């Protein structure tokens, strides 16, 4: 019994590494042709049966879900009414004492980066973990790259270099500084206006993707290579963790925070919120660009 489990684990590990599983010699890759859909009368009758019944069960499930949810909607508290049970003393406290306690004019930013900063740290860790998992699954190495893949990539690179569109290049050169500026602005002003680390990072990452699409990944690699990516990502998450530890430890001991809250409405205010927004923003930028680069080319 244990032997079978062992071999299943080996198959899984080999699949993660991009190899054929052990027991078969590492053969040349299978030809890329679409396998025919199994028709009726083949040896797959049990699958046809399973599919038909699963569709029936799925239809019943979805219709029941729809009915139950619509019946629930009729009994929910009315939209837009100030007396709804969601508008209770918690939100009242956040609004009335938020500025005094966190210094942030944007109450949502004050809430997620001061009152609930631990939750947001978990969220950043989830993003970090997702980027790591995608890197594990999609990174190119000698196990999962064939010579034909490499040739295809080289051909794409050559054709990309040859027919670069003049209009596209000029437009990107104008848009790129603007998108970088807007991204950093949204990050920096997250505590006094709508925005914050995640949205600013997404804008900045989008600008980098635009640049990589137009000028090729090799040009991005001149200022943002894999070493840089790991450095920024790890330093940002660790910096966030340090701010969090300091904030939680001093607060739980009843001490005043180390970072002054400043005057509400000024850029340098709101204590730890602005530095955390910047750190989160750069981490999100790295992650967004890494998703693009890994899915399109398999390397940063």
């Amino acid at each position, binding site marked *: 019994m244990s032997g079978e489990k062992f071999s299943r684990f080996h198959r899984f590990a080999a699949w993660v590494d991009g190899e054929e599983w052990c027991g078969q010699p590492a053969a040349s890759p299978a030809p890329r042709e679409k396998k025919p859909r199994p028709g009726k009368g083949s040896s797959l009758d049990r699958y046809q049966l399973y599919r038909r019944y699963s569709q029936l069960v799925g239809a019943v499930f979805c219709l029941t879900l729809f009915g139950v949810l619509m019946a629930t909607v*009729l009994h929910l508290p009315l939209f837009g009414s100030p007396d709804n049970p969601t508008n209770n003393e918690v939100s009242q406290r956040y609004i009335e004492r938020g500025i005094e306690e966190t210094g942030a004019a944007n109450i949502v930013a004050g809430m997620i980066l001061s009152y609930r900063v631990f939750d947001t740290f978990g969220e950043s860790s989830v993003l970090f973990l997702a980027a790591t998992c995608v890197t594990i699954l999609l990174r190119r190495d000698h196990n999962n790259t064939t010579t034909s893949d490499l040739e295809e990539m080289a051909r794409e690179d050559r054709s990309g270099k040859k027919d670069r569109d003049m209009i596209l290049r000029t437009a990107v050169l104008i848009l790129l500084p603007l998108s970088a500026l807007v991204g950093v602005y949204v990050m920096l002003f997250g505590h006094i206006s709508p925005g914050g680390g995640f949205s600013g990072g997404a804008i900045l990452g989008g600008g980098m993707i635009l640049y990589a699409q137009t000028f090729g990944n090799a040009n991005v690699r001149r200022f943002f290579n894999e070493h840089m990516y790991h450095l920024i990502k790890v330093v940002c998450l660790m910096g966030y963790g340090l701010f969090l530890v300091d904030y939680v430890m001093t607060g739980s001991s009843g001490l005043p925070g180390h970072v002054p809250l400043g005057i509400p409405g000024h850029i340098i205010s709101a204590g730890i919120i602005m530095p955390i927004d910047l750190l989160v923003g750069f981490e999100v930028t790295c992650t967004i660009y890494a998703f693009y680069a890994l899915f399109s080319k398999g390397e940063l």
Partner: protein
Amino acid sequence: MELLTTLWIQRYMVVSVLLFCIGAFSLVFNPNLIKKLIGFDLMDNAIYLMLTSAGYIDGRIAPIVTDFSAAPSAEHFVNPIPAGLVLTGIVVSVSVTAFALALVVRIYQKYHTVYLDVIMASMKKEVD
């Protein structure tokens, strides 16, 4: 008539239920893995719409203070809590979608298809 009035007042909830059910249909029925993921994202977005609409209060403004002369009153702003929850949810859904799409890419590299029934048939042949 009363039912229709209630449904009109709750229109955001009704749309979010519709989106959720369309997503669930596609997640259950569609054999294409990518379309399953699109259905999954549709369900995510239905939940965000529902949460945001639950925090809205008629005639009030977004929770960003502009007048610092007096302490802000809870009478002026909508509920900020659902906005924070949705912000967290969006980031987690981006992470989950990226991870799931990476898995689909690897499954395609192995089986050369994204149709779940074909994949299951080939898997059964392998086990036999």
